[in-house]
C-alpha cells in the first residue's frame, strides 16, 4: 500500500498530521480534549451533514504553507478541510469563544432549559454545550416558540419545542430508509420538523433518528419517562439479527431491559445503525448475548450508575452518630415503587400510581 502524504495542521499550538481531505474538526478530534470544537449538527456517519449550527466555528490564522494569509471570517470546522501548514485557533481565540457563546445563546433562545422534565437530560449535547460554552443567563425576554407535540409514528415522539433544527434526523431518514416521509416545513424560526401530511415514521431503520437527535426532540416512546438515564446501567450486547449488525447497548435496571440503543463512540455518534426490531421489540434479557458493561466516560452523569471501577461514596453518618440513622419513613414500602413483581419497563408509558393500584387490587 502506498503511503498517502500527510498534511500538517496546528490547532491551538498542537500539531497533528492528517490525511488530505480531513476536516479541521476531525483533526481536532484526534487531539481531543478542550481543543475539539463542539458540534451539534455534524455527524460523521451522515453524508453531507454539518455546516448548519455554527457551534464549531474556528479561526484560521494561517491558511496554509503555500498561502499563509489568514481566512477573513471564522469558518465551520466541520466543513472546512485542512491544508498543509494550516494554523487554527479554537479555544485560544477570543473571537471564536465570543462567537460560540453567541451561537449557544441563539440555540437556547427557543430551546427551553427544562432539563429536569426532559427525557434527554443526562444525554443531551445542548446541555453539555451550554454548560461548557454558554453563559448562565439569557438576554432573551420574549415568549419562546412552542409547538404542539406531534405523533409521527407509534414508536417515536416528536416534541418540536425542543428541536434545534440540526437536520440530522432528516439526513438519517434520507440516507437510511427507502421512503423518506419527513423533513423540514416552513422557514426561519417557524421551521419545523414534520412528516408528509400526517404520515408516520415507520421505516425499518427510522428508529435511528432518535439516536442522532442531539436534544430531546425525538424520543423513544417505549422508553420515554420510564426512567432517568442515570438510574440505568448500560451494557453492550448483541444478537443475531437478519436486518442489522445487532450490536447494541442495553439500558437496564436490575434484570429489566428498559431501552435499546445503538452503541455510541466518544463523540456521541453511533458506531453502527440498528434496526427497529432490535431497538423497540427485543427487550428481554434472553434475546441478547451480553458482552459486559459499557465503558462510560467518567465525566458523564451516566457514570453514576456504572459498575466499572465504580466507587460508592462513603456514608459517614453512622460513624458520626455512632449508629444507623432511624428512618422516619421507608419510601420504598410506602410508595410501592421498585416492588420486584412490577416490571416498570413493561408498562405502556410512564409509570403512574394507577399502575400499582391496578396490579394490587
Amino acid at each position: 500500500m502506498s503511503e498517502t502524504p500527510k498534511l500538517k495542521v496546528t490547532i491551538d499550538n498542537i500539531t497533528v498530521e492528517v490525511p488530505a481531505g480531513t476536516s479541521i474538526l476531525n483533526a481536532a478530534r484526534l487531539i481531543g480534549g478542550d481543543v475539539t470544537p463542539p458540534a451539534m449538527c455534524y455527524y460523521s456517519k451522515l453524508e453531507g451533514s454539518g455546516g448548519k449550527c455554527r457551534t464549531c466555528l474556528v479561526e484560521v490564522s494561517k491558511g496554509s504553507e503555500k498561502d499563509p494569509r489568514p481566512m477573513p471570517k471564522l469558518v465551520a470546522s466541520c466543513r472546512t478541510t485542512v491544508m498543509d501548514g494550516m494554523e487554527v485557533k479554537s479555544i485560544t481565540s477570543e473571537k471564536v469563544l465570543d462567537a460560540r457563546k453567541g451561537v449557544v445563546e441563539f440555540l437556547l433562545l427557543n430551546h427551553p432549559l427544562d432539563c429536569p422534565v426532559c427525557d434527554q437530560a443526562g444525554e443531551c449535547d445542548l446541555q453539555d454545550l451550554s454548560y461548557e460554552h454558554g453563559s448562565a443567563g439569557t438576554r432573551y425576554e420574549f415568549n419562546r416558540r412552542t409547538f404542539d407535540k406531534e405523533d409521527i409514528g407509534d414508536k417515536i415522539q416528536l416534541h418540536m419545542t425542543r428541536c434545534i433544527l440540526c437536520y440530522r434526523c432528516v439526513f438519517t431518514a434520507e440516507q437510511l430508509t427507502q421512503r423518506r416521509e419527513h423533513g423540514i416545513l416552513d422557514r426561519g424560526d417557524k421551521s419545523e420538523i414534520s412528516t408528509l401530511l400526517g404520515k408516520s415514521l415507520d421505516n425499518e431503520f427510522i428508529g435511528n433518528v432518535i439516536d442522532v437527535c442531539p436534544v430531546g426532540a425525538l424520543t423513544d416512546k417505549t422508553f420515554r419517562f420510564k426512567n432517568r438515564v442515570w438510574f440505568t446501567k448500560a451494557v453492550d450486547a448483541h444478537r443475531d439479527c437478519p436486518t442489522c449488525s445487532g450490536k447494541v447497548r442495553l439500558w437496564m435496571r436490575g434484570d429489566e431491559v428498559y431501552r435499546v440503543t445503538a452503541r455510541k463512540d466518544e463523540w456521541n455518534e453511533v458506531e453502527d445503525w440498528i434496526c427497529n426490531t432490535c431497538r423497540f421489540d427485543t427487550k428481554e434479557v434472553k434475546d441478547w448475548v451480553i458482552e459486559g458493561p459499557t465503558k462510560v466516560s467518567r465525566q458523564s452523569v451516566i457514570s453514576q450508575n456504572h459498575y466499572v471501577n465504580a466507587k460508592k461514596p462513603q456514608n459517614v453518618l453512622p460513624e458520626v452518630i455512632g449508629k444507623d440513622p432511624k428512618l422516619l419513613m421507608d419510601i420504598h414500602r410506602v410508595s410501592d415503587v421498585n416492588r420486584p413483581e412490577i416490571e416498570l419497563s413493561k408498562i405502556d408509558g410512564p409509570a403512574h400510581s394507577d399502575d400499582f393500584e391496578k396490579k394490587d387490587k
Partner: protein
Amino acid sequence: MKLLLEHADKEGIRYYEAYRKHGGYRSVEKAFKMTPDEIVEEVKKSGLRGRGGAGFPTGMKWSFLAKPEGVPRHLVCNADESEPGTFKDRYLMEFLPHLLIEGLIVSSFALGSHATYIYIRGEYAWIVDILEEAIGEAKANGFLGKNILGSGFDCEIYVQRGAGAYICGEETALIESLEGKRGNPRIKPPFPAVQGVWMRPTVVNNVETLAAVVPIINMGGDEYAKIGVGRSTGTKLISACGNINKPGIYEIDMTQSVEEFIFSDEYCGGIPKGKRLKACIPGGSSVPILPANLLLKTAKGETRTMSYESLADGGFATGTMMGSGGFIVMDEDQCVVRHTMSLAHFYNHESCGQCSPCREGTGWMYKILKNLEYGKGKMSDIDLLWDIQRKIEGNTICPLGDAAAWPVAAAIRHFRDEFEWHVLNPDEAQRRNYGLAHYADPIHVPASA
C-alpha cells in the same frame, strides 16, 4: 448614457421584429465569428461587474468555470429579484425581453451551455409569458435551438418560476430550488463553478449582467470599459424609489454624483413638497443606510458618486455599497427605527432557517426593534441589538445573515439618537404616526406599456 435602455421606448420593441429592426441580435452574429475564449476575454476587458449585488467581476467568474471533459455546463440567469427596493430586472425583462435572450445566447456560447435557465421570481408571472413568447420568436428566427445560425452551436433556454422566496435569489439556494428541492443555500465550497446545477459546473448571473454582454460584444470590451470610472465600468440600472418626485428605473454612467441623481430633473427630480433629505439606502435593502451628510460627500469631503468604489468609500463606518442598485430615499419625516424594524421583519420572514445565528438572531432583532418602535424599549436594548447583529454577521452559511445584520448595524451607528428618542419618549413614540406615505407613490411605468 444609455446602452441597455437605448431602445426601450421604441414601438413594439418587446417583439422580435422591432427589436431586430433596431439592431437586435447583432451581437450573436458577431459572437459566432469569435471563439468562446475570445468572448470571455472581451467581457474581462470590459471590466463588467456582476449587477446582482456582490459586484464580482463577471469575466473572472466566467474564467473560473470548470470544464471537465464530457460534462455539460450550465448558465443560469438569476431573475429572482427579491431585494426590497430593487425592481430593475423586472422592467428589463418586461420591456426588452429580447435583450436578455440575446445576452443569454452569447453568454451560453461563451460558456458552452446548451441548456440555459432563467430562474424567475414567482410573482413575475406575467413576465414568464413575455419571456416565453420572446424565446419562441427567437427560436422561430433561428437564434435558439439546434445549430444556431449554422454555427453548429445548440442552445435552449428554459424559464423556471420560483415560488416567491427571497432566499432563492442566493445562487446556491437558487440552484437547489431549480433542482426541485427546498431552497436552502449550499455550504461552499464546492462553488457552483465546480459543482452547480445537477453537480455540473454552473455560472449564475443577474439579468442586468447578462443583458450588458450585448453592448460589450457590439462595441468591444475596451470601448465599454471607457464608460464610467475606475473599476465601475459601463452603465448601471438604478431603481429609485422612496421620497422622490420621479421614482423609476434610470440608466446611469457611474460618474454621476449622488446629489445630482437625487435632485436633478433628469433623474429623481428631488424630494416631494420641498422636504429635506434625511437618509438613503442606495443599493437595495441589505446595504447600510447612510445619513444625508455622508451620502452626498464622503468622509474625506469628496463628492460621492454613484460608483462601486465611491459608495463603498470609508468602509461601513462612513460608506455603504452599490449592491443591486435599489435606491431608497428617505425624507425628514421618515423614522429610521420604523424602517429598520420593517427590514428586520423581512429578513426574519425570509431566513431559510438552516443556521442558528440567522434563524434565531433575525427574529430576536425584529422583536426588540418592534418594542423600540412602539415605545416599549429600554436603553440597554440598543446595545443588545448591536451585539446580536455582531454575532450574526460573518457567522452564517450564506450572506443573508449579513444582509440582515448590516441595516441594523448602520441604523444604530448613524442614528443612535433616534433609537434613544424612542426609549426616552415612549408615549410619543406610540402616538407618532409615520404613516406609509412613502409606499403610496405610484411606480413610474414607461408609456409604452
